[in-house]
């Protein structure tokens, strides 16, 4: 059992995502520290991958920028280790199966445990393929986060039953990125999860404004925002952490209004 449930103990959770090494690992580190101060309850750290098939253009470009800077999985582990000297909120990785597989799932999860990573999100690992990774995750107390989508329907029960940490509710069809309108009935998805597992549910994909965050937080236990934060990294570069902190504070307040 990991730390993750603590993220849901301060009212509705706000969960920001950031791509590690965009534009530098030091900027990412500063951004994480400032996001924690601004009220982030859990942070998703993206390990860059060359071909992030679940991402829209904003996060794709962040991955490319990070890889251009030659950021490696080992660099990210080293950064987390340093962060853990001050940061105590739950941290999860978000990356793609091949990053973990090529590193060696066992070696990867062992490192996660050592540096203090609480969970991992692998968008290209659906329920049917999870065993290969989940067995190792469990061995090292890393929660493999399950995702449910608007198309999941009757699959939700099966997925929720075996979910750990929190359930990532994908708000819309398509890839990550800012959307003006979210039409999925998130409340109904969350209800199906809770019927079989008392586990926190956080909504992600397409959320960028405080209004959306408040609306989504009313229907779930937390809100995940990626592209809107990555956009700040793209626009402000090394000066991004302060801008991100302002944004996170606003979004956490919106979550608390829900």
């Amino acid at each position, binding site marked *: 059992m990991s730390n993750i449930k603590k993220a849901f103990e301060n009212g509705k959770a706000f969960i920001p995502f950031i791509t590690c090494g965009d534009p530098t690992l030091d900027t990412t580190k500063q951004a994480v520290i400032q996001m924690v101060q601004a009220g982030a309850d859990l942070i998703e750290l993206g390990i860059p991958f060359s071909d992030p*098939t*679940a991402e829209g253009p904003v996060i794709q470009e962040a991955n490319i920028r990070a890889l251009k800077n030659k950021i490696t*999985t080992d660099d990210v582990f080293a950064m987390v280790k340093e962060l853990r000297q001050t940061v105590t909120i739950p941290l999860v990785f978000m990356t793609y*199966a*091949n990053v973990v597989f090529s590193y060696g799932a066992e070696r990867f999860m062992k490192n996660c445990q050592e540096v203090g990573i609480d969970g991992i999100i692998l968008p*290209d690992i659906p329920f049917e393929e999870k065993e290969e990774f989940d067995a190792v995750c469990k061995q090292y107390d890393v929660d493999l986060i399950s995702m449910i989508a608007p198309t999941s329907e009757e699959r939700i029960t099966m997925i929720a039953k075996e979910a750990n940490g929190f359930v990532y509710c994908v708000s819309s*069809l398509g*890839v990550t990125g800012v959307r003006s309108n979210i039409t999925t009935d998130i409340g109904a998805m969350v209800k199906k999860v809770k019927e079989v597992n008392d586990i926190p549910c956080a909504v992600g994909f397409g959320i960028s404004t405080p209004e959306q965050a408040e609306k989504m937080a009313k229907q779930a236990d937390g809100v995940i925002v990626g592209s809107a934060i990555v956009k700040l990294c793209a626009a402000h570069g090394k000066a991004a952490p302060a801008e991100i902190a302002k944004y996170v504070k606003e979004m956490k307040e919106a979550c608390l209004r829900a």
Partner: protein
Amino acid sequence: MSKGRFGIHGGQYIPETLMNAMLELEEAYKKYKDDPEFNKELETMLNEYAGRPSRLYYAEHMTKDLGGPKIYLKREDLNHTGAHKINNVIGQMLLAKRMGKTRVIAETGAGQHGVATATVAAMMGMECEIFMGKEDCERQALNVYRMRLLGAKVHPVESGTATLKDAVSETFREWTARIEDTHYVLGSVMGPYPFPTIVRDFQAVISKEIKQQVLEKEGRLPDAVLACVGGGSNAIGAFYNFIEDKGVRLIGCEAAGRGIDTFETAATINTGKLGIFHGMKSYFCQDEYGQIAPVYSISAGLDYPGIGPEHAYLHDIGRAEYVAVTDDEAVEAFEYLSRIEGIIPAIESAHAVAHAMKMAKTMSKDEIMVINISGRGDKDCAAIARYRGEDLYE
């Protein structure tokens, strides 16, 4: 282990959003693959529309010139749209129609699969959108025009290396956004299950015909079957009905680009390692941290960092051999076959011809070799001319 495995390879490594679409496709395929009415319609379209069966041509001049085995060319280049791709497209489109889909999307490398998809979509009255790497759009401008002429919308893909792998990623992204009315006509024996199985079955008509034709002409099976391999659809099609015939050597010819000892290569089996990408576990060209390599080949259709899971398995168990052929060798073979047999092969297929030229020297006159000419080379003429330092204006 999950569904759709070939040894340790294959599987369904895709976002949850697509899982129900995958299950729906699997169900539809299981329902129709042995359905007499479906198969009758498929056969009629393959014969009447695509022009099957394709010829097995005895390449007498090449045979004499090389002084080795009797060489036969399986003429997939004579199919409607000029390549083997249409075999799979017709099958998947008939399936998509039965699934109630009204719109199809597809990736394309050289443009052959895109053209085939746009063609059958035009004929069946379906909406069609094709994703093609921006670099490939430039390399294969004629095929881009063809697709537009056929009524398809072509999206140049600028992400990543702007080639086939990025076109595949972008088509998957598009499918995640619009599933209800849309089928993804995947063009090779790759991606998540059930695609590698479905595409193989629709391409297996190639080896089914080769077997019948060679038995008619020679009264026995060939000693070797050669085909080029990118994702591997024409190769698996040419191999499939011979897998159980252990006396038939199966040889896949990968694109070595500028050489397997350089970074400018797309030879997956020869330079890649086990990984998970584009929905499947298989071999991929990648760096030590699992970042997919920016591969290179003169051939847009073989310029892909992975290989279909069934090929990975045939390699593991030693049933098929995978060799690497450089740009230079392929271009020479492209010119050779044009001159000696009056057949201009696709630059992809020229990779198989190139290896056949080397291999023929090691075989005896009483042996038989079949080369799958997966497509015709008209689309490549401008690029090969450029390669030889000549600028063509079409």
